[in-house]
């Protein structure tokens, strides 16, 4: 009869109670038995014995009651648990006696396990766990971006999908709620939330038709915006707020954690579908699509349909489209699309951290192996005293599992901090990233991992120790009788460890070289001493060009008036900033056709003096001057790379470019140096063949309006804190309804653009550092153990006349042999593996020989260092002492 769970629990509970009240229960047991004896004694007295005889008889009748008492106590205690506790106590005492060993072992494991805990959390949260939407496996991304006109077309024509559109998002002004702020909003078709299958937390989603003009004055806000900006006000639904100068009613609040297409998005506005607004409907404001595969359809059908629909839609364009426009559009699973960029980085980190754990385990295993051998005598003694082989193995395994569990516990703590480091490596807009935390599932997995590693690295040493030649070990007490198989195993472990280390250090080395190359990149401008502040009036306030020209004229004048400011300028964008402006242009001598649609140029709008202030070299012609006014003839500056593409071998000065659809040509008056606008690592994307600058007062966006949001740049030698404060307040004084960003030194913008990369490198460096340290410990342990084993042999050699140099070189050879094999294997592995780093590398190839040679040299140098101490010890072996021992 198997007892029910409850009975089992009851029994355990009673035992637990017993442990607490052990002394009391012992006393009660004694009293119980004594009262039994007294009853017997009384019976004996009644039978007519003298009191003395009655007592003696009762004592005899009770028999050996101590045994019974012992049995009773056992009845109440957890025998197996007690034995375990005993083992644990013994292990803890041993660890306490060997603090060096313990610290190294626990730390290695904590590093390995902690890193894995963090990485496991991320991989689980970001790659494995499905998106938090209804039936997420039916959600797909339609690749490419499409004009708004395509939204109703796809929605009506598609038979396999429900199509929604949502922009990547941009900043909007939120005014009329205290200080004007910038919020990050995404424009979405009315059906976005139903396509995603994401219900609102409060209020309602967009209603069908709310993306048509006149009905679109609604907005849905994120939980974060509701909490931070509106203080969780429950009456917020129905309130009207002003976004980019337009009144919108808040109709819904999304649940916490919802962020689509990225977690940056704080608000969703209807994507206005207005066929009468030709430029917006066909030209600007292109959007990506996200779709839900309908029931009964599959991805393959959707992909075929997309190709057909794209071809069909291309014919409806009111202007010629490139022949291959979106020709390879297809549908990919949404999760793959959202995590596409980080998948590689994540998997690389995951495998490296796995390698660190492997190294840590190898190391601890090898440490335990050597310890098991030095404990040979102790174990032999215990076997001689009657300990079973199983008991010895269990004792040793208890030790290793205890080590692993301590390491695991520390590892989880370490994992929490590691997680925040890893998070900083990934783009913060990754959906779900902020919510990734070590939860009980991960903790459980880690506990299992720790147990498993404990068993894994404990089993070999335990088995090796239990195969003991009893008589031999005790009699001689020497450590010469070793099973060479275990020693070979240990050398193999360390070789593998060195190989893994080489892979990690090579990766870190390649990344370091990339960072160095990046820091040497010629920016094309000088960011020193320049402070920037973003001023973002509503675009609607610039319908009158003169209003904005006057506004920025005033701002520039007052900025130049601040003490300590040498120069001031405005620009519509900063180099290496997130948002880049483009214009579709017509170029003199390059007529548009279906094969050569209007090229997109990067287009800056800057005030006179910007080029000089930024230190961008003027290569030909002239800069803008105050004479290039809003009424005078249009002028442009272009970069040499642009000139080479459109007018190779010709003088570009005097050539003409105009915005697509514009009447008047603008004249190129100067050539200024190319600037890294997009990123340090890459130049312009290939769909942007050139770059040009317009004077701010003549500038135009694709809809012909002047730029409203601009960045003010000032250069000065004055204290940047005070200066920053002054330019910010000067901008704010212009209009309290205009949001003004924090002041940022341009140098911070530059270094910020590669901060993700820097932190990736930092993570890799710490991995590599941990690996190399662990490898050094491993080699040291191996060689010093070898020396201990061979003390006798070395003694004989010295006695036979071997010189110290000879002994040292023998020992060094031991370490080097392992290191050379390991490095060789590591180089082969690294050659195979580093190409996965491809996307992270800049300016070095994945098989960069310099890095490989340097790393090999480093590993060998570390080996020599780690071997030096045991070698020195070996050289000092005094043959007389050692030969006498046996």
């Amino acid at each position: 009869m198997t007892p029910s769970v409850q009975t089992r629990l009851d029994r355990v509970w009673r035992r637990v109670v017993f442990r607490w009240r052990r002394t009391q229960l012992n006393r009660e047991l004694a009293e119980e038995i004594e009262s039994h004896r007294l009853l017997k004694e009384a019976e004996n007295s009644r039978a007519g014995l003298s009191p003395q005889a009655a007592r003696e008889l009762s004592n005899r009748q009770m028999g050996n009651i101590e045994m019974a008492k012992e049995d009773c106590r056992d009845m109440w205690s957890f025998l197996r648990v007690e034995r375990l506790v005993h083992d644990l106590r013994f292990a803890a005492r041993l660890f306490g006696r060997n603090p060096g060993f313990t610290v190294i072992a626990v730390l290695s494991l904590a590093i390995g396990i902690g890193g894995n805990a963090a990485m496991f959390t991320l991989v689980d949260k970001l790659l494995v766990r499905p998106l938090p939407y209804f039936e997420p496996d039916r959600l797909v991304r339609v690749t490419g971006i499409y004009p708004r006109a395509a939204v109703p077309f796809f929605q009506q024509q598609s038979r396999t999908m429900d199509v929604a559109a949502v922009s990547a998002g941009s900043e909007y002004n939120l005014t009329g709620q205290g200080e004007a702020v910038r919020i990050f909003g995404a424009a979405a078709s009315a059906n976005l939330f139903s396509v995603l299958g994401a219900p609102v937390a409060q209020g309602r989603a967009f209603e069908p038709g709310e993306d048509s003009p006149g009905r679109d004055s609604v907005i849905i806000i994120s939980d974060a915006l509701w909490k931070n900006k509106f203080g969780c006000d429950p009456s917020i639904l129905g309130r009207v707020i002003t976004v980019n100068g337009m009144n919108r009613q808040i109709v819904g609040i999304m649940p916490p954690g919802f962020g689509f297409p990225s977690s940056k998005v704080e608000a969703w506005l209807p994507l206005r579908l207005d066929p009468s607004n030709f430029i917006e409907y066909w030209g600007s404001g292109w959007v990506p699509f996200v779709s839900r595969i309908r029931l009964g359809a599959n991805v393959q059908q959707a992909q075929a349909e997309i190709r057909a629909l794209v071809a069909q839609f291309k014919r409806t364009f009111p202007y010629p489209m490139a022949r291959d426009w979106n020709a390879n559009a297809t549908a990919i699973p949404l999760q793959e699309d959202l995590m596409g960029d980080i998948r590689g980085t994540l998997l690389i980190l995951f495998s490296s951290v796995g390698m660190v754990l492997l190294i840590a385990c190898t190391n601890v295993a090898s440490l335990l192996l050597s310890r098991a051998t030095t404990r040979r005598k102790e174990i032999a003694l215990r076997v001689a005293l009657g300990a079973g082989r199983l008991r010895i193995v269990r004792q040793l395994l208890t030790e290793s599992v205890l080590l692993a569990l301590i390491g695991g516990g520390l590892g989880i703590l370490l994992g929490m901090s590691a997680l925040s480091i890893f998070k900083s490596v990934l783009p913060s807009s990754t959906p779900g990233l902020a919510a990734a935390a070590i939860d009980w599932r991960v903790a459980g997995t880690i506990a299992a991992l720790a147990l498993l590693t404990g068993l894994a690295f404990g089993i070999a040493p335990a088995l090796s120790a239990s195969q003991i030649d009893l008589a031999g070990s005790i009699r001689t007490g020497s450590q010469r009788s070793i099973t060479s198989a275990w020693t070979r195993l240990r050398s193999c472990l360390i070789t593998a460890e060195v190989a893994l280390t080489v892979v990690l250090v090579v990766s870190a080395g390649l990344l370091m070289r990339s960072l160095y190359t990046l820091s040497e990149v010629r920016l094309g401008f000088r960011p020193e001493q320049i402070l920037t502040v973003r001023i973002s009036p509503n675009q609607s306030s610039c319908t009158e060009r003169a209003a904005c020209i006057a506004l920025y004229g005033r701002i520039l004048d007052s900025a130049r008036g601040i003490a300590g400011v040498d120069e001031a300028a405005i620009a519509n964008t900063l180099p290496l900033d997130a948002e880049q402006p483009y214009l579709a242009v017509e170029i003199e001598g390059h007529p548009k056709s279906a094969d050569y649609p209007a090229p997109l140029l990067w287009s800056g709008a800057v005030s006179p003096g910007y080029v000089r202030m930024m230190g961008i070299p003027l290569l030909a012609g002239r800069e803008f001057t105050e004479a290039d006014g809003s009424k005078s003839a249009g002028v442009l500056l272009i970069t040499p790379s642009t000139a080479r593409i459109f007018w190779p071998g010709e003088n570009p000065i005097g050539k003409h470019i105009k915005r697509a659809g514009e009447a008047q040509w603008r004249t190129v008056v100067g050539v200024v140096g190319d600037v890294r606008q997009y990123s340090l690592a890459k130049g312009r994307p290939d769909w942007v063949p050139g770059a040009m600058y317009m004077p701010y007062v003549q500038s135009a966006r694709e809809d012909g309006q002047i730029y409203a949001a601009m960045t003010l740049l000032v250069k000065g030698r004055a204290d940047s804190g005070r200066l920053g404060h002054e330019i910010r307040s000067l901008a704010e004084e212009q209009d309290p309804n205009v949001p003004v960003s924090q002041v940022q030194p341009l140098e911070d913008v530059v270094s910020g653009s590669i901060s993700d990369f820097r932190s990736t490198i930092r993570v890799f460096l710490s991995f590599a550092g941990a690996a190399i340290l662990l490898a050094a410990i491993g080699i040291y342990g191996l060689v010093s153990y070898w020396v201990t084993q061979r003390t006798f042999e070395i003694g004989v050699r010295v006695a036979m006349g071997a010189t110290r140099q000879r002994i040292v070189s023998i020992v060094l050879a031991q370490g080097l042999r392992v290191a050379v094999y390991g490095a060789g294997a590591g180089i082969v592995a690294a050659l195979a593996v580093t190409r996965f780093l491809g996307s992270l590398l800049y300016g070095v190839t994945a098989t960069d020989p310099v890095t490989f040679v340097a790393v090999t040299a480093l590993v060998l140098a570390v080996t020599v260092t780690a071997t030096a101490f045991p070698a020195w010890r070996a050289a000092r072996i005094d043959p007389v002492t050692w030969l006498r021992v046996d």
Partner: protein
Amino acid sequence: MATERIDLPQGTLDLLILRTLALAPQHGWGVSERIQQISSDVLQVQQGSLYPALHRLERRGWIKARWGISENSRRAKYYELTRAGRKQLETEAGAWRKLSAAVAQVLDMA
């Protein structure tokens, strides 16, 4: 006392204790006396096995103990059957009867 004593087969002590306690709560000495008495001195319980058995039964939750005053006005630990114990007694007694009937049948076969 010419009666021959029999060693208790494994596991029967528990059954006997439960049966004894089914009559009335009893302390250890009382249990051993009662078993001896009812079995006409055939079965004698050793203290060395009685107390471990009592504690085992208590641990299993079949009997529970409380302190009371014994015949000689001393504190003594009285054991009584719990509900689970009563059920266990029925099961075990049934099983025992079946077993002994079967054994008897085998022994008595012609």
